[in-house]
């Protein structure tokens, strides 16, 4: 390092002298403008103090100067030579100057002056003032002047060294070529970037070595350079390893005193990466632009500057303050919606808002959102809470007033993000909604079909159930007539009989209503239901089947269970299915047929209904398949019952499972979510 530094420094020295590089610092400053001035000066300090000349090369001039000084002194004092021997001290000073050390020059000069004075006084004393005195004075003057000049030269060299260091510090590749094109100077960046060392580069023709390719005509460039002394432009060069560099190049023509061209200083800034980065940036911008324009996802760019200052004015700094303010000023949301400006929307979002050709660019969030939207307040709260993004589902208003269901994600800028724009990504979920609705309808249809099928199985039971009150009605009517037609009518008996007729008529109509409700094809309801009632209604529907099959039914229903939310008919259907399955499972067995239905609260928000039978049980390999569609163990079963039950229960946010117990008996468990807002039904 140090050696090459010296080599370069001396080369530079030579070049600087020849070229009269007075504008050197300007050039360097221009070339290294990318670095801060502080960095440069610090670099110089380090270079100059940390890399001194080697002691050996400094020792020789010092030693020579010392020996010469002693020799001169001895000659001056011991010989009687007439003449200014002391002038020879100048030589010692000049030798000492070769160390380029200020101190060395001063020391040698001082010693020379002192020794001259000593020699003079020793030889001549104070008595004789004459020509020898003049000679001594001339010697002293010569020593002083040479010392001063040496010091000046030392300062100049120091400046040049600093400039050379600056050229080396530059990230730019800097070289000097003579008018013939041969390289005369080659800085460290050139060494590093191009790959040729100083030794390899010096003397080589620059264009050939670097395979320089110009975008302009080479001759035109040369002409421009000669005309103006400068040239700037882009070119390509190839490194030793074959890498092609894209460079910004600046040339300065150097002239000697009489205006002849002595060379060209070329500085080259490697813009390969900068160009690549810029190209990447442009590509990125294009890509994002394309995403913005071509995306099927609607993008809304919002500007909340006004909204933010309004929030600041109202001292709403966090979510709590926001909630507090909202409690007092519920209208605030409306004004906030107006303050949330929309800067830009992409074509996809415009299309979402456009109905048959009428389109307008929305100016604020208020124009876009439906009036009963609740998500904007939530988004504001998320923003105030410092969230990075917020998601939700809401509806936007189309230009014809139609509501469009959408899913959105708002991204908030980070705190330090100067941009500050808020991006909202919006997806139209109309089709998904329709599909969901269709799926729900299909599920309801299927459940209905299953109910019809179930009722088919229950026909005998239902006929019997309706027959009972009908028979009571007719028999009571006939009895009443007979009591009336007796010789002495017994009006009390008539009264009792007619009361019974009325009660039984009502009962029959209740049964019919219950069955009609069970068969009804209506949208899924979400009512708060008392599970005990649901169980008793379901059991009533299958009561006669259970009686026929001699099934002993036991109930264990916890008192005061909280309400569940759901569809009464669908839950009844699930229970009817489970009860019928249990009854059929036990059909024909000689052991007792018992069925126990229990309901209890499992957790704060969970309720469980279980249906346990004393049938043969369910084989392990069939246990999970039970819930698959078209799986059945019954000879005439369709295999849809439990599949529909499970779907129904899951649509209620619950679960339907069968206990994994070996051996006889099966227990089906139905968990249901407790209605959050309902205590006791």
């Amino acid at each position, binding site marked *: 390092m140090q050696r090459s530094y010296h080599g370069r420094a001396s080369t530079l020295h030579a070049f600087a002298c020849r070229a009269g590089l007075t504008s050197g610092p300007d050039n360097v400053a221009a070339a290294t403008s990318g670095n801060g001035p502080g960095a440069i000066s610090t670099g110089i300090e380090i270079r100059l103090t940390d890399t001194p000349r080697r002691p050996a090369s400094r020792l020789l001039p010092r030693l020579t100067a010392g020996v010469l000084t002693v020799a001169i002194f001895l000659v001056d004092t011991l010989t009687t030579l007439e003449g200014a021997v002391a002038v020879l001290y100048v030589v010692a000073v000049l030798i000492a100057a070769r160390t380029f050390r200020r101190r060395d020059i001063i020391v040698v000069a001082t010693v020379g002056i002192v020794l001259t004075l000593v020699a003079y006084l020793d030889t001549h004393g104070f008595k004789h003032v004459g020509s020898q005195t003049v000679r001594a004075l001339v010697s002293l003057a010569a020593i002083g002047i040479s010392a001063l000049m040496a010091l000046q030269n030392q300062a100049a060299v120091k400046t040049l060294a600093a400039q050379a260091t600056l050229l080396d510090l530059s990230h730019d590749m800097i070289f000097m070529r003579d008018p013939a094109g041969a390289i005369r100077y080659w800085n460290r960046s050139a060494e590093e970037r191009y790959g040729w060392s100083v030794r390899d580069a010096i003397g080589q023709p620059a264009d050939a070595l670097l395979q320089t390719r110009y975008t302009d005509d080479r001759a035109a460039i040369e002409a421009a350079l000669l005309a103006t002394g400068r040239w700037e432009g882009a070119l390509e060069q190839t490194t030793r390893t074959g890498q092609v560099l894209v460079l910004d190049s600046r040339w300065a023509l150097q002239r000697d005193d009489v205006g002849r061209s002595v060379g060209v200083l070329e500085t080259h800034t490697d813009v390969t990466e900068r160009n690549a980065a810029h190209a990447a940036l442009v590509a990125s911008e294009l890509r994002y632009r394309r995403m913005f324009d071509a995306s099927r996802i609607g993008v809304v760019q919002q500007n909340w500057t006004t909204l933010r200052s309004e929030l600041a004015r109202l001292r709403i700094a966090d979510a709590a303050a926001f909630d507090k303010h909202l409690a007092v000023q519920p209208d605030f949301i409306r004004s906030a919606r107006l303050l949330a400006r929309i800067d830009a929307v992409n074509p996809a979002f415009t299309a979402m808002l456009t109905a048959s050709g009428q389109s307008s660019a929305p100016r604020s969030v208020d124009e876009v959102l439906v009036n009963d939207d609740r998500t904007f307040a939530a988004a504001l709260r998320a923003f105030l809470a410092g969230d990075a993004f917020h998601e939700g589902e809401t509806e936007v208003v189309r230009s014809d007033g139609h509501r469009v269901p959408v899913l959105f994600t708002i991204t908030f800028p980070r705190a330090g993000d100067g941009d500050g724009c808020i991006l909202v990504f919006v997806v139209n979920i109309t089709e998904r909604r329709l599909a969901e609705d269709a799926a729900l309808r299909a599920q309801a249809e299927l459940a209905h079909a299953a109910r019809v099928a179930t009722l088919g199985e229950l026909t*005998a039971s239902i*006929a*019997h159930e309706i*027959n*009972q*009150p*009908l*028979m*009571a*009605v*007719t*028999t*009571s009517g*006939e*009895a*009443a007539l*007979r*009591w009336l037609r*007796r010789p002495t009518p*017994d009006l009390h*008996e008539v009264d*009792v*009989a007619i009361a*019974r007729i009325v*009660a*039984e008529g009502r*009962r029959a109509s209740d049964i019919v209503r219950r069955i009609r409700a069970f068969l009804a094809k209506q949208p899924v309801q979400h009512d708060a239901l008392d599970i005990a009632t649901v169980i008793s209604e379901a059991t009533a529907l299958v009561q*006669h089947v259970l*009686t*026929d099959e*001699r099934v002993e039914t036991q109930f264990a229903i916890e008192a005061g269970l909280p309400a569940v939310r759901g569809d009464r008919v669908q839950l009844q259907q699930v229970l009817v299915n489970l009860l019928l399955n249990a009854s059929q499972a036990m059909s024909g067995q000689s052991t007792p047929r018992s069925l126990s239905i229990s309901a209890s609260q499992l957790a704060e928000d969970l309720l469980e209904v279980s249906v346990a039978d004393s049938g043969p049980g369910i084989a392990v390999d069939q246990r999970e398949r039970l819930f698959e569609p078209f799986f059945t163990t019954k000879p005439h079963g369709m295999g849809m019952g439990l599949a529909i039950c499970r779907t129904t229960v899951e649509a209620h946010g619950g679960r339907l499972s069968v206990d994994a117990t070996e051996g006889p008996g099966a227990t089906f468990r139905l968990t249901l979510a407790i209605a959050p807002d309902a205590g006791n039904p």
Partner: protein
Amino acid sequence: MIRQPPPQSPNAAALSEPLVIIVDDESAVRESLDSLFRSVGLRTLSFGSPAELLQAVVPDTPGCLVLDVRLPGISGLDFQTQLARLGIDRPTIFMTGHGDIPMSVRAMKAGAVDFLSKPFRDQDMLDAVTAAIERDRKRRSDVAAQDGLRSRFDTLTPREREVMAHVVSGLMNKQVAGLLGLSEITVKIHRGNVMRKMAVRSLADLVRQAEALGISGS
């Protein structure tokens, strides 16, 4: 819902008054039947389940049972069989729901008097009940007659029974005497005692009674 017999002291008339026993788990059905039967002057007892009936004290009077084929815990048919075993069986009228044909067939084979499908006309039920009661009355008098015959037969001495058995098989007095190693006159005396004790006038009557008692000459 056990309707106790009238509180007055049981006399012959009260005991012979026909009694309809109703078993149905539906109280409305039970009560309307009860009312219907009472409106035509029948005594009734109604029960919600077979178990209730089995625990109740039922007077032993002519009458019938009106049962629902489907009863909680036990089928009407099984219940009927159980009652027969306990010796408290009566002619039974079954009420069935819709489409219980196989069960009706079984019931008829088990000796049901009638089958009425709900809902039925009151007259049909009353006719069925009247017929059943009549049948019970007849059965009861048959049983009573049988009971008289048996007690008369019990007064015969062993030798008189032997003589009777041979006589009803158509043997002459002389043949009977030969078989039993008695004199003809002794056989004649035994035979006269048999005719007197069995309260018959002719040999033909005696033969009929022997048949009823299951006595054969061999």
